[in-house]
């Protein structure tokens, strides 16, 4: 039982703006004229397309097969016809394209045959595969596959259900908990059994009394050890690591997973999705999304995955002075570069923004070292130091001061009296470092290739020379012919000649290699070199685990790297 709560360092209390959208029940969003379903479901996995243009599909029919270690399946959100498989812009700050299946709905919304399973009666591996094939991923924003998070079913003591929803404006989890508490908890119980946890702890910010009451009522009849814990409203209490800290006192270091500490955390929306997938056999084809901000009719809508954001917006009625739309909350979200992007499983909120509601930040002043940022930082960093280092491109130092422990929550920027966009600098520094690491990797690969080619050419040359020499020797032997000929002169034996030549060639290749090596780095200044070494050393030392080890592709920017704060 949780008898006391813990505190994380820092945190901020922005105006919550929850009431705008929280007071209306979830409404279904209409089926749009066209659905654009991205095959890429998270930063590291893209589903293998198994439909053809022209093919008719049913609601819930698999259109993309799980592929790769972190892959999950992708489904048709409604019945209709596949019209196109093409590149479309994604919901991402860069607005880069990704492969999407474009479906024209037939309006019948006809389900494929659904297969519920009984997890108590099913082999664990089968259940996990079922979740994967139902496309169940983290609904909190990271879209990390749930079946992977369930691990091998051992070593987890506590399953934490994240209902904190600490970002201002967003209320989709709040509504979901108020309206579908039983389903959420049923999903949580299934997850709890699959992961082998002893107890379930649901963390909900105490500004959601209705959700807390609903969840408590739903937990009452259940036999599992479920505790609904109101946590103090303090952004970013919904950050996974922060919530775990508040509830259990455990601090999960950067790059480590909760499972190493005996805790695992799922979003309440994920609990709901698991319930649907197991009990109803329904894959994830829709989600609840908050439409709010500068709109006349804010609220939460259950919308099909793949619905273009622009077709959702009229439901909320954006006001005339709206000049941009934010995807996600105002603390960690981003302005949509393109409104045609589709709703994806991690999309929790669209905020219509106007300059009146979200005024542009006042001009930046120099840092006065007031340490407000450090006092607000939930990762216990010294943002102003990181700012100096990032600004002066001193990335080695920035890493030494734990740049990569920054969760990009934005608290530091929020409080800075000098209005310095600190997080922007950190995102910039991180992407620069990733880019450099990529460059270094590419360079060393190129060098390896180059060296190998040299070596091969030398070897071929040597072999050729050896063959010629052997031939010459043979001819000589033939000419010398007669009685004393076969006496094996060791120096002249063809095999030995070949060996010697190869050795010489190898030696040459080695020298060449030695000559090449400094050349590759000769044009780097000592600082840069030191920096590179440092980065390299840190990388070695940190052994960046699974999640962070692959530098992101060009279409996976900083915001996706981070576990979004809910």
């Amino acid at each position, binding site marked *: 039982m949780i008898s006391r709560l813990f505190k994380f360092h820092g945190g901020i209390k922005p105006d919550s703006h929850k009431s705008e959208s929280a007071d209306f029940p979830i409404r279904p969003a209409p089926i749009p004229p066209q659905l654009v379903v991205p095959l890429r479901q998270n930063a590291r996995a893209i589903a293998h397309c198994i439909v053809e243009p022209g093919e008719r599909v049913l609601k819930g029919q698999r259109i993309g097969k799980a592929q790769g270690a972190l892959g999950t399946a992708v489904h048709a959100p409604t019945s209709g016809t596949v019209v196109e498989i093409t590149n479309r812009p994604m919901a991402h700050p860069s607005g880069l394209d990704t492969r999407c299946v474009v479906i024209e709905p037939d309006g019948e919304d006809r389900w494929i045959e659904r297969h519920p399973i009984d997890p108590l009666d099913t082999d664990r591996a089968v259940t996990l595969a079922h979740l994967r094939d139902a496309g169940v991923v983290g609904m909190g924003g990271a879209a990390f596959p749930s079946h992977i998070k369930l691990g091998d079913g051992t070593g987890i003591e506590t399953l934490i259900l994240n209902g904190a929803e600490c970002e201002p404006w967003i209320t989709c989890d709040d509504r979901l908990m108020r309206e579908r508490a039983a389903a959420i908890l049923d999903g949580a119980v299934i997850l709890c059994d699959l992961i082998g946890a002893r107890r379930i702890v649901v963390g909900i910010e105490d500004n959601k009394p209705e959700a807390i009451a609903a969840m408590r009522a739903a937990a009452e009849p259940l036999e599992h050890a479920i505790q609904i814990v109101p946590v103090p409203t303090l952004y970013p209490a919904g950050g996974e690591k922060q919530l775990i800290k508040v509830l259990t006192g455990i*601090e999960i*270091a*950067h790059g480590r997973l909760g499972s190493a500490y005996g805790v695992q955390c799922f979003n309440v929306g994920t609990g709901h999705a698991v319930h649907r997938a197991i009990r109803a056999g329904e894959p994830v084809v829709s989600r609840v999304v908050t439409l709010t901000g500068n709109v006349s009719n804010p609220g939460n809508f259950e919308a099909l995955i793949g619905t273009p954001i622009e077709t959702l917006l009229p439901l909320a009625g954006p006001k005339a002075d709206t000049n941009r739309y934010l995807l996600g909350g105002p603390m960690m979200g981003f*302005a949509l570069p393109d409104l045609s992007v589709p709703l994806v499983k991690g999309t929790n909120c669209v905020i219509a923004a106007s300059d009146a509601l979200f005024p542009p930040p006042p001009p930046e002043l120099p840092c006065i*070292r007031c340490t407000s940022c450090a*006092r607000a930082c939930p990762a216990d960093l010294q943002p102003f130091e990181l700012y100096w280092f990032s600004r002066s491109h001193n990335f080695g130092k920035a890493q030494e001061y734990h740049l990569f*422990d920054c969760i990009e929550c934005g608290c530091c920027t*929020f409080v800075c*009296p000098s209005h310095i966009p600190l997080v922007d600098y950190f995102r910039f520094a991180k992407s620069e470092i990733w880019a450099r690491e990529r460059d270094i990797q590419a360079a060393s690969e190129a060098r390896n290739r180059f060296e190998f080619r040299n070596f091969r050419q030398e070897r071929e040359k040597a072999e050729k020379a050896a063959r010629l020499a052997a031939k010459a020797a043979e001819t000589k032997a033939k000419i010398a012919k007669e009685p004393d000929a076969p006496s094996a002169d060791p120096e002249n034996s063809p095999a030995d000649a070949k060996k010697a030549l190869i050795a010489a060639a190898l030696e040459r290749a080695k020298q060449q290699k030695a000559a090449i090596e400094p050349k590759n780095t000769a044009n780097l200044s000592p600082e840069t070199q030191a920096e590179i070494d440092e980065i390299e050393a840190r990388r070695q030392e940190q052994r960046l685990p699974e999640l962070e080890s692959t530098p992101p592709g060009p279409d996976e920017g900083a915001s996706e790297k981070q576990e979004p704060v809910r």
Partner: protein
Amino acid sequence: MTTFSPYIRKPTSVRQVMLTVLIALVPGIAVYAWQIGAGILVNLAIASLTAIAAEAVVLKLRGRPVLPAIGDLSAVLTAWLIALCFPTIAPWWITMIAVLIAIIVVKHLYGGLGQNPFNPAMVAYCSMIVAFPSLMSQWPPAGGLDFQTQLDLILGGARNIDAITGATALDALRTGLRSGETTVGSILQQSAFGALGGRGWEWLGLGYLVGGILLLSRRVITWHMPVAFLVTLATIATLFWLVNPAKFASPLFHLASGGAMLAAFFIVTDPVTGATTPRGKLIFAAGVALLAYLIRTFGAFPEGIAFAVLLMNLCVPIIDMKSQPAVFGHKGGRQP
């Protein structure tokens, strides 16, 4: 539009921070004007006007926008601190030179707001006490001069100083002790001393304390510096006093005299030139207190806080570097 998250900001600004500090100084200033001499108000005005003018000219020369920078009020704060640590009856030009040094040399030659490694007010104080040691140590007896006399002295009428001015409590104490026979006890019998420290000055300390509490409650400063400063000063004073109460003044005397309270809440806490980490703040403020005590007691100047602050300013980079707090998840404790 290329702005990134967060899209909301706390309604705060450098101007607001500085304004809060200025407001927090008001109780102290009120006590000062009432107990020691209203001339301080004239000094404050001279210092403020000089600071604003200097800031405007320098910014203009540096080709920077003038209005927003003056609007941040940081120059005015520097001016006020200078006026508050200078003698009430310091002639106008001394205050003016001091402010010019602080704003032009210490602040802007190092790059302007936020860039200066040394506390401008303290550099100004130190330069003036070195350049004009006698003028800088003439204080009126608390409440002993009427406003007109103060004004005459400030604005540069004839100075028949010795007749009307004395030294601060600290100064009197050190001169007394240096001259030989007397003990702390007998010196403190003199009328210049109140119940705790210099007469009237203990009230001033209270005024600054009130302002300091305001700063703490508005979270402009954290507790670390004032507490470390006052505790260290009290501790070391107690140690010496216990060893030889005849030669060393009591801790209460040290806390209540000179700029102890002003320093604790308004000077060591200068964000730009102080240490920044929680542990660093403790070390920094304790260092200032320690050095200040040593200079007060054994050094060549009666008030050592200014020099102590500058010495510790020098150490800030290394203090900060060595006192970085453990970050989330790396604090030891429960690890798998």
